[in-house]
């Protein structure tokens, strides 16, 4: 069902053109935050308006869209955004990562490796990696201009001095093509290694903060670290209890009030695919009996 009252994918063509220009500029200068005239969308700021605008500017009628939040296709906000585009663009949707041409995500990169021709759109709350070190936009823009990232290294160093380790577990800052320090959005640092040398186009949209930035395919992306404290992606030290995966990011699900818990893949499509292929986890037998 398409709503005839609105243009394809909701935004008017002039607005899409403005957003596409910002995207192209972002792709031309990887990791640089391009200001754009973000529109008021019919969903609240902070709920993916940046991602929705980027997706809207990218979608064509032949696209197949996947929307995830926390890695899952069935979380409420993912459902809501997917419905929005089904209604306003009438595009095909899918839960299968490999089949999607455009994937809008919040807080995760899918486990299944992306391929050329795909676009991954991130929803970004605070695009500025230096924001919590320096609250002023006028200052942080200057710091990027001058490539003045000392403050960030001091912060990471202080973490090590205090905790013996870098105490940032998500939205872990990266350096793009040896130039811009970039916020990869609040993905767990487990996902950071997937940012670099990725065959897909990665676009980042921050609606409230009016910024778009991008990683073109096969971009060099390095998580900030020190020689003696190298970056370490981390996850729960378990296997998935449903599909047995050892290398996927896990959610901890509390199963009772006596400390019982299970670990399952946060990427629901990846987990379901593995189970369909016959992989089993610690608790799959119980599921099968039910």
């Amino acid at each position, binding site marked *: 069902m398409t709503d005839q009252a609105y243009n394809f994918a909701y935004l008017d063509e002039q607005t899409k053109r403005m957003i596409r220009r910002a995207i192209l500029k972002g792709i031309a200068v990887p990791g640089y935050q391009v200001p754009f005239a973000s529109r008021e969308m019919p969903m609240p700021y902070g709920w993916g308006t940046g991602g929705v605008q980027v997706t809207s500017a990218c979608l064509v009628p032949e696209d197949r869209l996947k929307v995830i939040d926390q890695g899952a296709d069935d979380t409420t*906000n993912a459902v809501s955004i997917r419905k929005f585009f089904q209604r306003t663009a009438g595009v095909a949707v899918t839960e299968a990562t490999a089949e999607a041409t455009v994937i809008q995500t919040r807080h995760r990169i899918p486990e299944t490796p992306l391929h050329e021709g795909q676009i991954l759109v991130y929803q970004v709350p605070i695009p500025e990696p230096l924001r919590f070190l320096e609250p002023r936009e006028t200052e942080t823009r200057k710091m990027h201009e001058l490539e003045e990232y000392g403050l960030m290294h001091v912060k990471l160093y202080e973490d090590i001095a205090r905790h013996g380790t870098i105490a940032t577990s998500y939205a872990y800052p990266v350096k793009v093509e040896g130039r811009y320090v970039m916020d990869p959005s609040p993905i767990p640092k487990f996902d950071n290694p997937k940012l670099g040398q990725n065959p897909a186009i990665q676009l980042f949209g921050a609606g409230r903060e009016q910024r778009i930035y991008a990683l073109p395919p096969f971009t060099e992306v390095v998580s900030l670290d020190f020689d003696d404290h190298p970056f370490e992606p981390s996850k729960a030290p378990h296997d998935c209890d449903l599909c047995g995966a050892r290398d996927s990011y896990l959610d901890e699900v509390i199963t009772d009030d006596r400390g019982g818990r299970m670990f399952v893949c946060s990427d629901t499509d990846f987990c379901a695919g593995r189970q369909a292929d016959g992989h089993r986890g610690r*608790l799959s037998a119980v599921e099968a009996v039910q």
Partner: protein
Amino acid sequence: MYVAVKGGERAIDNAHAWLAEERRGDCSVPELSVAQIREQMKLAVNRVMAEGSLYDPDLAALAIKQARGDLIEAVFLMRAYRTTLPRLAGSVAIETGSMAVVRRISATYKDLPGGQILGPTFDYTHRLLDFALAAEGDVPAAPTAPATPGPVPHVTGFLNREGLIEDTQRCDTTPPDLTREPMELPTVRPLRLQALTRGDEGFVLGLAYSTQRGYGRTHAFVGELRIGWVGVEVEIPELGFAVEIAEIELTECETVNQFKGSKTEPPQFTRGYGLVFGQSERKAISMSLVDRALRWRELGEDNSGAPAQDEEFVLMHCDNIQATGFLEHIKLPHYVDFQSELELVRRLRSEAIVLTEAAE
């Protein structure tokens, strides 16, 4: 045994149905009409138009009804609708000097050309609950008098003739449009005024109040506060002259601020300006105080570090639609990030415990 958040789609549909039922409330009580809200909740309608940046009393009343009286939600509905509207034309600058005033007061003069007109104000009402309103009934008609003919000149104009108040340069360049270009800092006064007039009334009020209590004090007098109707004119290229397309109600506030002079400016009064859709005088006065506080740089004043003097702080936080969206988004699932924090805290704790045990 694994029951995660499945069935999001059905849950959302059901939640919406329940919301619609709650909005209607008890069906034995007659339903509010949009016209009733527009006529009897006029100040709420005005606020929604002002912060929604869209002058349309009917739509604002509809938004209030749909939002169950949550005015910020109603503003949001107006803003989301406004974005989809085409920009057909820009109007000629409105002329508040020829406003048909329903209220006009000056705190700086006892009497003045054009007169002091109280108009429909709460100012001197005693705030006693009027239980007669609980019973329905017609209001007796207010006494009337013929309107005073002739223009109502601006108070600041009198001061200007003596050179006692700063002269403002007339500028005919098209101001930047906050809703069509990303905000870049530092910015210019027309853009600041745009942001303030659609800014959250409570936020702007709080900032203005803070300047009165000494955080960036500006010694403001209400030179003039006027509420009334002005025509909106648009140049029609085919005709070659401007045609009035609408009348809108506005509140305008001009403050006269004490100013002892600075390195760059002689001693004279300075101005703060507020202009808001509808009858919104608390907002208009607040706006003019904050506008004046933000002008410290152009007037060569010191920055005392007060929040109201900080352009970036004020402009980046005065929009309630941005603020409420970002604030409320923390209701969304964050369990992936929380999981990574759980692991970090567990690891840091286990290392700390090992160290403590080793020390013992």
